[in-house]
């Protein structure tokens, strides 16, 4: 209900759910606050925001007092001002005012208010105890003598990050913030996300980076985080052409939150001394690289690629796009491969993460992307079904939003072979045997159909193929599925009923679904489930793959795929082909290219001879490392365009130094299909060049006439050729707050937050009848354990970026393998002991992490670390549709070893 309120003589008509503070803000009346943080800390503790309300005996805190009809408020009476001055005097009595040594000097709210209220030092004597600071955490510190006990950090940890590791402690009558940044910081549950530090109004709980600059002497550049595909918005803080810090922005997907990687691990690498600064050409005789000029390097590449093309045809060439790079880079890379190389052999690393989603959802729904926005599926939903996804580690800011939802009462179903962090909050956890997703989904559908919970109307009007599906899933009784999945049939029934009966319930899934030899069918099983209960095309529902890299969605959207032009326009579509030939002024190959994962086998067979790799390190990231190495060594000519001398680059004939996201303009498309801007923050010394310029130069040298274009121009070209991007331009993105979610088909089109509303992109949704097929390599007597691989919170993929942030390496710097306590006891393996892990493809030495996280006979490894790289073990068994490798299941054996072997191995 709207009410009339008068504040300092100004009348406002406002909702009665507003506080006096909000009403004042609406009138542009400034009321000072210290402890107030909207919706997080409205506790009225500091009393800076007090105002006088006529008819009330006492001053009231405006931050948590609601307006009432007829209320008359005065915000700057003598009584109010006096009271605020008292507050500042009391706080300053216990606050170290040697501001010179404080990291927040210049951006401290206490300092600002003391200046505003003309208080130089307190009139009171201090009473605080002398408590030592906590400074051992590499990123965060807590200085008690600067703390005003406002509780913003504590409530941020509990309500925003949803982690709840910051507590209040007492010492007599004093309250202390029990910050977990002391010597035992690694043992605490603190994720070092730093959202608490962001909340601190003073220099008490502060990120160490803040010490490196004064707020007045830096510039800030709004951009998009380069780690996972959540698409967090933040500012790069730049001093003298050096990025010194990151500050969160209130982006649509991160709402002001960041994770440890985004906040602390996204700029050190930019300035790393290990950056490639010059083109390098390898001397074939000596095997050594030598510095070369750009002309030399590009001429050599053009000559060799043209030679291969001439001798073996264009399809002997291939290019891999970089899913970490911008849409504009990727568009130009695929254009180079198609126009200058003359082949469709272009792909990107979605092939090894979410290609199954792209193919699967395109087949069943018509569009291979997340259907609903993050905010939509984590607020006001009844149930969240999380399948094969550990967002607390891989998509931490999504994880935080799921934790928030659960704490507000959303039920959570976790389907995962491991006890991930969120399983502790799950109403029910289906601890599936790895590789049995299709059986699980069929079992769910069996229950739903048998319980009469299928949405018949939705099925009838919006889908096809239901009868075939039904026939198959009828065989997947809960008991049968329980046996396949190693779960309790009751858990399956409960999950099915919970999901089906919920008014709003999204499926959120990740690589636990896709990275299987049946990954595409796993994905289609997810869309089958959602269609069966009509949970598509509406708010709070949908099928939602959390994409991996920052721009892996964009890499697919931009046509870095063997069968599709930008915007998933098929090369087999004649009209499409004609459009691109006309626009690009060249005759294009009509033959679909080969998938990245097939390129390796083709290279060994000498079908592929020249390869251009842009920003990928498949030696480290792709399954079965020895096989990939052999393939790359078989090539006639390998070019790598990267920031660093990666293991893959070591094998190249020419290495080209590109530039990072912080040095270029462009766009990333996050997992929600949201196109957001990337902006140039710094220009570094060296001969590194914009990647689009490198591609343009090479195109011209290879005989395709490509004018030099700015990033903005390139996006205009993309928009002109891609209906789903037709309304997107840098100019428009710079004007919008929330980016644009494709499809955005025209300048006036607002973008599409929720897909498939009323109608599927495909027309009718297709129920794909998938049968459960076991993983390709199952444990046997020789290799009795299943090995799964995945990510951890503190690193991203090859660690090219996170490995260059020392604090992240200090937190987690080494390879490890999770083993069940029972197995460890049987093998006589202790926690943290060094052990040998071998598969049919190779053998590594790593450390055991013994616990209950994985089930008996199952193991799990992160793939980030070179000291025991999991991908030496993994199996490159490929999915039949998407050609995605089975990272999540291979068979290994585990052996005890003695210490010396380990030392030798590491050294």
């Amino acid at each position: 209900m709207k009410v009339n309120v008068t504040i300092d003589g100004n009348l406002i008509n406002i909702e009665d759910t507003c506080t006096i503070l909000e009403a004042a803000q609406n009138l542009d009346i400034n009321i000072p606050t210290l402890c107030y943080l909207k919706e997080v800390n409205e506790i009225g503790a500091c009393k800076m925001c007090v105002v006088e309300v006529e008819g009330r005996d006492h001053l009231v805190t405006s931050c948590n007092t609601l307006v009432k009809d007829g209320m008359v408020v005065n915000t700057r009476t003598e009584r109010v001002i006096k009271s605020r001055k008292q507050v500042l005097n009391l706080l300053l009595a216990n606050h170290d005012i040697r501001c010179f040594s404080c990291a927040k000097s210049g951006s401290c709210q206490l300092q600002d208010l003391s200046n505003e209220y003309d208080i130089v030092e307190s009139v009171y004597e201090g009473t605080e105890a002398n408590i030592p600071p906590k400074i051992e955490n590499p990123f965060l510190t807590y200085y008690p003598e600067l703390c005003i006990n406002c509780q913003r950090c504590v409530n941020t940890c509990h309500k925003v990050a949803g982690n709840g590791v910051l507590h209040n402690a007492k010492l007599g009558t004093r309250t202390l913030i029990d910050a977990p940044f002391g010597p035992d910081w690694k043992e605490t549950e603190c994720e070092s996300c730093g959202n608490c530090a962001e909340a601190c109004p003073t220099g008490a709980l502060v990120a160490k980076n803040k010490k490196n600059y004064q707020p007045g002497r830096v510039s800030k550049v709004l951009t998009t985080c380069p780690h996972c595909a959540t698409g967090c918005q933040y500012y790069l803080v730049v001093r003298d052409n050096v990025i010194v810090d990151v500050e969160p922005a209130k982006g649509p997907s991160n709402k002001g939150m960041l994770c440890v990687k985004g906040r602390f691990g996204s700029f050190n690498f930019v300035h790393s001394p290990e950056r490639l600064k010059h083109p390098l050409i390898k001397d074939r005789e000596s095997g050594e690289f030598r510095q070369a000029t750009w002309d030399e390097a590009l001429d050599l590449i053009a000559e060799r690629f043209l030679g291969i093309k001439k001798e073996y045809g264009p399809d002997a060439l291939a290019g891999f796009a970089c899913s970490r790079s911008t849409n504009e880079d990727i568009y130009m890379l695929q254009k180079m491969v198609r126009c200058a190389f003359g082949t469709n052999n272009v792909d990107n690393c979605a092939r090894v993460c979410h290609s199954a989603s792209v193919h699967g959802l395109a087949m069943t729904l018509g569009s291979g992307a997340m259907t609903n926005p993050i905010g939509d599926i984590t607020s006001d939903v009844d149930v969240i079904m999380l399948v094969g996804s550990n967002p607390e580690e891989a998509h931490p800011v999504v994880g935080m939003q799921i934790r928030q939802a659960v704490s507000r009462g959303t039920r959570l179903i976790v389907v995962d072979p491991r006890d991930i962090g969120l399983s502790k909050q799950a109403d029910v956890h289906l601890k599936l045997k790895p590789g049995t997703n299709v059986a699980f989904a069929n079992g769910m559908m069996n229950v739903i159909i048998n319980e009469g919970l299928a949405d018949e109307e939705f099925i009838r009007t919006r889908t096809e193929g239901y009868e075939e599906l039904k026939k198959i899933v009828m065989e997947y009784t809960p008991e049968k599925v329980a046996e396949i999945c190693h779960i309790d049939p009751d858990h399956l029934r409960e999950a099915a009923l919970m999901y089906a009966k919920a008014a709003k319930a999204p499926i959120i899934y990740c690589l636990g679904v896709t990275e299987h030899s049946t990954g595409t069918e796993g994905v289609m099983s997810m869309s089958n489930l959602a269609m069966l209960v009509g949970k598509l095309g509406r708010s709070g529902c949908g099928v939602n793959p959390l994409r991996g890299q920052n721009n892996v969605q964009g890499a697919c959207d931009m046509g870095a795929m063997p069968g599709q032009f930008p915007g998933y326009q098929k090369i087999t579509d004649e009209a499409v082909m004609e459009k691109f030939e006309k626009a690009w002024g060249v005759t294009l190959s009509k033959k679909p290219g080969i998938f990245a994962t097939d390129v390796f086998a083709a290279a060994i067979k000498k079908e592929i001879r020249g390869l251009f790799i842009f920003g990928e390190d498949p030696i480290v990231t792709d399954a079965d490392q020895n096989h990939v190495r052999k393939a790359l060594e078989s090539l006639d000519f390998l070019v790598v365009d990267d920031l660093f001398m990666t293991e893959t680059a070591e094998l190249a004939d020419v290495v080209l130094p590109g530039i990072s996201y912080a040095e270029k303009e462009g766009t990333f498309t996050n997992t929600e299909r949201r196109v957001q801007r990337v902006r140039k923050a710094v220009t570094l010394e060296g001969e590194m060049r914009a990647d689009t310029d490198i591609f343009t130069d090479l195109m011209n040298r290879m005989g395709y006439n490509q004018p030099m274009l700015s990033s903005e121009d390139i996006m205009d070209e993309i928009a002109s050729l891609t209906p789903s991007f037709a309304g997107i331009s840098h100019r428009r993105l710079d004007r919008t707050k929330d980016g644009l979610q494709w499809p955005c088909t025209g300048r006036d089109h607002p973008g599409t937050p929720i897909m498939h509303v009323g109608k599927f992109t495909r027309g009718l949704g297709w129920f794909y009848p998938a049968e459960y097929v076991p993983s390709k390599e199952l444990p046997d007597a020789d290799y009795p354990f299943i090995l799964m691989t995945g990510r951890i919170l503190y690193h991203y993929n090859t660690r090219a970026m996170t490995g260059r942030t020392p604090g992240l390496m200090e937190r987690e710097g080494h390879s490890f393998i999770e083993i069940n306590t029972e197995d460890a006891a049987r093998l006589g393996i202790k926690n943290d002991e060094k052990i040998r892990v071998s598969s049919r493809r190779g053998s590594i030495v790593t450390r055991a992490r013994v616990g209950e996280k994985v089930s008996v006979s199952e193991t799990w490894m992160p793939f980030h670390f070179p000291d025991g790289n999991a991908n030496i073990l993994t199996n490159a068994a490929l999915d039949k549709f998407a050609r995605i490798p089975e990272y999540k299941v291979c068979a290994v054996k585990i052996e005890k070893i003695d210490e010396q072997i380990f030392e030798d191995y590491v050294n």
Partner: protein
Amino acid sequence: MYSKTIIYKNEMNQKTMRFLDRYVKRVKGNPPGVCPIAVQLSFLQSARSQTCGKCVPCRDGLAQAEIMMRKIVDGKADMKTLKDLTELCHMIEDTADCAIGYEAARIVLESVELFKDEYLSHINEHRCQPEVGQKIPCVSYCPAHVDIPNYIALIGEHRYADAINCIRLDNPFPTACAFICEHPCEEKCRRDLLDSPINIRGLKKFAVDQIAADQVKVPECNVTTGKKVAVIGGGPSGLTAAYYLSLMGHKVVIFEKKEKLGGMLRYGIPNYRLPKDRLDQDINAILSTGNIEVRYNVSIPEDVSFEEIDKEYEAAYISIGAQKGRTVDVPGSKADGVYSAVEMLDSIGHGNIPDYTGKRVVVVGGGNVAMDASRSAIRCNADEVTVIYRRRQVDMTALPSEIQGAIEEGVELLTLNAPVGVEADDDNKVTGLIMQPQIVAAYKAGRPSVAAADEGVKVHPCDIVLMAVGQEIYSEPFADYDVNPRRKTFEILPTARLKTHEKYFAGGDCVFGPSTVIQAVGAGKVAAINIDEYLGYHHKILGSIDYPAPKENDRTHIGRVHLTDRSARERKKNFEPVENGMSYAEAMQECNKCLRCDHYGCGVVEGGRV
């Protein structure tokens, strides 16, 4: 010297006393979670303020003790400070002339011993132990942690059904607790710092009097989990566990030995205190969740063996209560006419009201059961009813209001008399109770003990003796299930699971010994949560209530609304409820007094903790 003036000179003292009344209130209202050493410091300060200044140990010693204590409170002390403090206090205790000095020192020394861990924490960790930290007084003192500020606010908005569902998020017995809860929530009500605690139970009663609990729809259960949990004993604890387990989606089977549910609420508490039809309202609501099956007249393990429970159920909750009345083993206690009070109440609970017309009844004991038995005896038309207790009236464990009610109804208290035998006639019929008069003596374990007085035994003539001297559990059938042979109660882990039997949990009177209904409810809820966890789930108990925004504190001092009883003359004639409810105006006045410690106090930190 004699004073030669009549002019009154004690005005200052009078004023000080008036101030001290408020000071005492402040001390009494000490919130839960305060650092005990900080409290001891304030004690020392107040002791020092009382020194007359004559003797060195008190005058100067207490001052130095205070300085050292402050150092300890502030985390600036080391072990030497503590040693110095204790040495000094020993000296003060040894040498001070009067109680102002030596008693202060003695209390400090005892406290150092009592709170040793906290002292060490201050000295070594420079912080309090983790459990120190303020909590919302009413919520934390309620064993079931009911969200009291919010349900009071809902009552204040006339949203009685929502208030009942708010209570039911933590306690499915809003009606039973409205009648007979001992309301520990009121003990530390912050309102006591102003005037007096809010009548929280009275407000709850007002709410359930506006709309019957079984007319308020319970929240929808989670979808079925397919798991089955056995609950052994359908009293308040068992029913609470059953309620939450069923909301979580589990199927619950309650094995009830008797023909109706409710346990002691039905068969122990007389109807005049908790009317059976009102109890049924709670039970109906609990059963309305839909996942609960009750098997009446079934005893474990006689009718259903443990093996069967092991086989058919994923977990079990033992909540058999403490239903066996103890007797005093004195000569003649087997005489005809000696009964246990629990048996007598149980029989009344079953509808068999004995006729005591013309009988003289003696009730032995000083607890609530003694009051229930004596007041019931009055209602059974006894000629005279006497409660015989070996301590003083102030030492009785019965609620003062129950004692008062009994006296009003004509029960006579004969205190400081220990029963030593029963006198019987040749037919072994009771003719009197033999008592040994007692004298109150020195404190033992914190309360005054009694000893036989220097005079001979007396006989109190009577026809019926009702023993109300405690209860225990029927433990024999459960002997193999972690029953402590001495205490005759189950031994459990903090999660309520039995120490050696994985799938068995226990709670309520059979674990604590005879206690309050709200204790039993709290235990049942904790057990339900832990059973769910044990089964591998983390089901949420959901309720969607939109809570009203907290109102501003009303700082006016307003007297507490007390509930009144029906006239004793009338009420003692039957078993109809004795207590009157609050009027609307009274209820609104009480609601308006809530200081919303959940909002204005520590309840808003750390994401809103209990």
